[in-house]
Structure formats: structure tokens, C-alpha cells
């Protein structure tokens, strides 16, 4: 009987592609032979828009890139502009930015935890993860009025100050998360079905991970110690002490454990930042029409999904000449085929979930 390979279409409308992604799968009775991701369904031409907006007007647009972690996009772009224009941000603003960025990392990882568990079948974990995430979104709403597309970081500093009540509320939220996390870990960590679905699935070695340009938790799961908050510290990250969790065999289970550990580390960072919150201004005076001398800069930060980079070239006017965004999900998605080859069809869902990609950031 001639061997006939089914080519299967997963997406763009599919329950577990985290947005509008289409996977062209060549499948031999559940065993995956080839995976070809097709992207572009959410392409809004961000980079073209950015060339026709002033530096400050671009910030709300960066919210819509990785809409699960919009504050990190704000931070990435704003730091690049500040480096380009040579703006020095007061220390209190840098601490508040660290608090916001790490809270955003918590919210992003909790959303990822819910999505991935739901893809592999543990539907209750989706609700537990999102319930914990809601408490963090309430803090963002309290701080600057928005929950998802937050636009909570401006060029030159932060729009509002962290007053006593808000700091107390953040501490209460931070105390609540470990308890909720313990429930989820009790449900999943040692569960034989969960381990059966994740241990040894979608493995990638350290050298292959670097070859594919993988960054963020998927790379650290293969044992590569690369965290920009430690290697190229920005926004006074070097003043906090936290560990960088590493995995051993780079499979879906390690990526799961690493992100859980990163949640604990982020809680530590936010606590240290709140304890050591220096006095001072929350932002420096930036001219309303910001003109930047012709120059170029490529600045990267450690976003929840991986290394998020912004290349900005200025031409002396108030509008950037060119803004290019280096998206972690865009690069991480390229290694999906390498990880899925030989695994079963249902693993593609688990591996895609473990990569934690967001299509807004991929398609720009």
C-alpha cells in the first residue's frame, strides 16, 4: 500500500495557535514529518506607521505588539529612544519601571501557564492562572488606568508615581501569587499524565538553540545561561540580586519549570525594588516636540518571551527615519519544525504552547 502522507492545516482559526498562526503540517498517521508555520495574518505594517509618527506617538503602538506583555514593549522602545537621544532617567523612575516590567513578566508567564496547560488538557489551570493574572492587571489599572494595552511608560520616565496605597496593594498581590502557584504545581508538577505529555517532548540541544537564535526561557531551558538582565543590565537591573533558572535537557517540561521559577524570581525583584525605592522625580522634562540628532542605536531588553530589540535610526527631525523591532517570538517560532520533527501531532500543540509565542509580535 503506497505510503500516503496527509498534509494537515492547523489554523489560522484553531483553538491552540495563540492568535492567527497557520501551521502546514505533513503528517504520517499522527507522526509529524514537516511543520511550516505561515504568518502574516496579523500584519498591520507597524514599521511603516512608526516612520510617520513622532517618537512619543510610537509608544502606544508598541502596546499592540506583544499584547500579553505590553509594558515590556513600551520599556524596550523607550529605552532605545532614550539611549538614542541621550536622555538620563531619574533613579526613582528606573525603579518604578523595573517594578512594572517585572509585574508584566509575572502577568505574561501566568497567561502562558494558563494557555499551555489548557492546550494539553488541564483546563482548570487556565482559570487558576488567569485569576492570579487578574490581580496584577488590577494593579496596572490602579496605576495608569489600563489593563492590557497599558502605555504605562513614557520617554523620559513614568507617567505616575507609586504612592503608599499602590505599593501596599502590590505587596498584597505578590503575597497571593505563590499560594495560587502552589495549587497549580500540586496539580501538574508530579502528575504522570502531565509529565508524559511534556518530558522529552520537543527537545532542543544548547548548540542547536543558539544556532536557531532562540532566546528567553526556551533557550535557558537548554542550559544556556543568557539573561540580558544579567549580561547587559539596563534600567538599574544590576542593583537587584536574583537567579537565572536553567534547565538541563531543553524539553517542554524544563521550559514549564523555568517559567515557574522565573515567576518566583520576578516576585523577589519587585520586592527588592519596592523596598529600595529611592526618592526623587518620576520623570525628566522632555521637550514636547522631541528632535533627535541623526544617529542609530540597537537596544535590547529581556522581555518575558525572549530578547526584544529595537533598532532606531534618527534623521534630526521629530520622526524616526527607521524603526526595526527584533521580536523574540518571530525567531523562536522558526525552531518549531526542529522541535516537532518525529513527535506526535498532539505534541505540536504542547511544543507551540511551551514556546509562548504571540502573533501580534511576530506579524508586527
Amino acid at each position: 500500500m503506497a505510503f500516503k502522507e496527509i498534509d494537515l492545516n492547523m489554523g489560522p482559526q484553531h483553538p491552540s495557535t495563540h492568535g492567527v498562526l497557520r501551521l502546514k503540517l505533513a503528517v504520517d498517521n499522527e507522526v509529524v514529518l514537516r511543520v511550516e508555520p505561515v504568518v502574516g495574518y496579523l500584519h498591520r505594517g507597524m514599521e511603516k506607521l512608526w516612520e510617520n509618527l513622532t517618537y512619543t506617538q510610537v509608544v502606544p503602538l508598541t502596546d499592540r505588539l506583544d499584547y500579553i506583555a505590553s509594558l515590556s514593549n513600551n520599556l524596550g522602545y523607550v529605552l532605545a529612544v532614550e539611549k538614542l537621544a541621550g536622555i538620563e532617567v531619574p533613579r526613582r523612575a528606573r525603579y518604578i519601571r523595573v517594578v512594572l516590567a517585572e509585574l508584566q513578566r509575572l502577568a505574561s508567564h501566568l497567561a502562558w501557564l494558563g494557555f499551555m496547560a489548557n492546550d494539553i488538557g488541564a483546563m482548570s489551570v487556565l482559570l487558576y492562572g488567569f485569576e492570579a493574572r487578574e490581580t496584577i492587571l488590577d494593579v496596572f489599572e490602579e496605576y495608569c488606568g489600563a489593563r492590557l494595552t497599558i502605555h504605562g511608560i513614557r520617554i523620559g520616565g513614568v507617567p505616575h508615581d507609586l504612592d503608599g496605597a499602590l505599593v501596599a496593594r502590590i505587596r498584597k498581590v505578590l503575597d497571593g501569587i505563590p499560594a495560587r502557584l502552589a495549587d497549580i504545581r500540586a496539580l501538574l508538577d508530579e502528575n504522570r499524565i502531565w509529565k508524559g505529555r511534556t518530558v522529552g517532548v520537543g527537545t532542543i540541544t544548547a548548540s542547536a538553540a543558539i544556532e536557531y537564535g532562540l532566546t528567553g526561557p526556551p533557550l535557558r531551558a537548554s542550559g544556556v545561561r543568557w539573561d540580558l538582565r544579567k549580561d547587559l543590565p539596563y534600567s538599574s537591573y544590576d542593583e537587584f540580586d536574583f537567579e537565572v533558572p536553567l534547565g538541563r535537557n531543553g524539553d517542554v517540561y524544563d521550559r514549564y519549570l523555568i517559567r515557574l521559577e522565573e515567576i518566583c524570581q520576578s516576585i523577589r525583584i519587585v520586592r527588592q525594588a519596592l523596598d529600595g525605592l529611592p526618592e526623587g522625580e518620576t520623570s525628566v522634562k522632555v521637550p514636547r516636540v522631541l528632535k533627535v540628532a541623526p544617529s542609530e542605536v540597537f537596544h535590547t531588553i529581556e522581555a518575558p518571551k525572549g530578547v526584544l530589540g529595537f533598532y532606531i535610526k534618527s534623521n534630526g527631525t521629530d520622526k524616526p527615519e527607521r524603526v526595526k523591532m527584533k521580536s523574540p517570538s518571530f525567531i523562536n517560532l522558526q525552531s518549531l519544525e526542529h522541535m516537532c520533527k518525529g513527535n506526535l501531532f498532539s505534541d505540536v500543540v504542547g511544543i507551540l504552547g511551551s514556546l509562548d509565542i504571540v502573533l501580534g509580535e511576530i506579524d508586527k
Partner: protein
Amino acid sequence: MTPFVAEVLIPVGKVVAVILYPMVMVVVMIWLERRVVALMQGRLGPNRVGFQGLLQPVADAVKLFFKENIMQRQADTFLFNVSPVLVMFSSLLAFCFVPLGEPIMLGSYNLTLWIAESPVGLLIILGLSSISVFGVIFGGWASNSKYPLMGALRSVVQVLSYEIPIGLTVLTVVFVARSMDLVEIVRRQEASGVWYGFLMPVSFVVFWISGIAETNRAPFDLPEAESELVAGYHTEYSGMKFAFFYMAEYAHMVLVSSLVVILFFGGWLPPFPSVKALSFLHAAPGFVWYLVKIMFFLYLYVWIRATFPRYRFDSLIRLVWKWFVPLSLLNFLAVALGRFLL
């Protein structure tokens, strides 16, 4: 008791009752599942339609009834339409052999709370439950699209391989009760004073887990895995045909729960028969006890669904061939030795 009533009215009444019984249980199950899973996830679940959402299943049924019945142009019309009926038919028919309680004396007439009692009742139920597999296969294959086809293929392998441990564990019960007649099995448990679930715990556990796999539920719901196969074998179905599949799955769950209750937990027998202090429990008729036990197992179904992730296909099959089949064989051996020695 005129012959007309005894010969015509009561049997017809009983048949209608047996058809209505799973329907009512399905409605209860739909509501129970949505509420319990919701409460376990920290939310309230349906509470708008009717008191505490009790009319939600009715609302679903009405919605599905008025939904358009879409069928793929290339679908194989005959098989596409026949498979929901097949699935529904086999589940409902099996309920005829399920004894619900002690026969009641109506004057001189002995009203038996089941339709048919045959010496091979258990075998018939198992046979019927594997007919529903045909419905799933034809449904998935006739939809002529890739996801349902994969759902159907998965369901074939899963249900067939899980029938072996079910068969073996049922064999141990039949072996001890020396008969395949369900009523007889319950009577034997009453006579021996101990329920087979406690006598042979391994059989009970293996039967229960294989029963979950048999009905494509919770950790074994690969044939209809939402996050992988969109909706598995019933992706292409809509309207009342989809409702048939939906109801059949719940009816099948009720069937497996009642099997577990009858085989391992003494059908309609009140618990702790020998303890004098709890004799007030005997006051409630057998049927109520039967219902209480079934509700516990149905609750367990939903509880497991809310807790566990989904098995992957190969670990599912490895589980049955490497663990359940040898385990049930050894268990059968142990039971045989036990009976021989005692």
C-alpha cells in the same frame, strides 16, 4: 389487574420509562458537569436560565434543535446521517437490561424494575456498547475531512484496546457471581454480604479507568480533543445530529456508571446491611440507593475531567497494553485461586 393492563399498559409504560430515564439523566449530567467543573475552577457556572441554571440543558437542547443542520457536500450522506442514530440507539438499548431496583409487588402483579432479564445480560450490554464505536467511526469517516477522520481512527484503537481489560475484569465478577445475569449478581452480593468492589479492588479500579477510556472522557478524550482535533469526530456535525452525539456520550457515561454500581457496589442494596444501628437506611427503596451511587460516579467523572490533562495517544495505548491487560490477567488468576482455595 386486568390482563390488558398487565400485558400492554405496564410493558409500554416500562419501555417509555427506560427511554426517559437516560434522557433525564443526560439532562442532569449536562447541568452537573457545567456546574461542578465551574465550581472547581473558582467560578459559578450557569445560573441564569431557570433556578441555579437548571434549565440550561433545556436551553442548549432548544438551541441545538433550531441550529442549521450543515453537511459537507462531499460527505457520505447515508453514513453521515446514520451514525448519530447508531450511537444513540446502542446506548439507549443497553439500558433495558440495567436492573434499577427490587421488584415491587402491585397486588398480584410482580412489577420488575427492568425490562428484560436474561442470563447473558452483561454480555449484551458490553456488545451494545461496542456498537456505538461503529457510530463514531462512521461519523468521523463520513465527514470526509481530516480532523474527524483522525478523531475516528483514534477512537477505534482506543475503544477496542480498552474493551480487553473491561472484559477481563467483568470476567472476574462473573466468575465469583457464577452468572452473567445482572439481577443475579446483585443478589449474590446481597447473599455473600460483601460487595465485589471491596472483594476485588483491583478489578474495580481497572474497570473504572477503562470505563472512562471507553466513553472517551477526561484524561482519555483524545477522539474529541478540543485543543488538537478542534472537536474530533463530531467536528462536522451541527444541530440535532451533534446533540445526538452529545447526549449519547452522556448516556454512555451513565451506562458505565450503572455497570460499575451493579457489578462492584451491589446495585440497589443499601450499604452496611449487617450493621443494626444503620438499619434505618433500609427504609429508602432500592432505587434511591442505586441513584445515589450512580450520582457519585457521575460526579467522579466530572471531577476527573476538571483535574487532569489529556493523555497522548501512544502513552494511552502503552497504558492499556503494558499495564491494564497484564494487571487484569493477574487479577483474574488471583480471583480464580482465591475462589478455589476458599
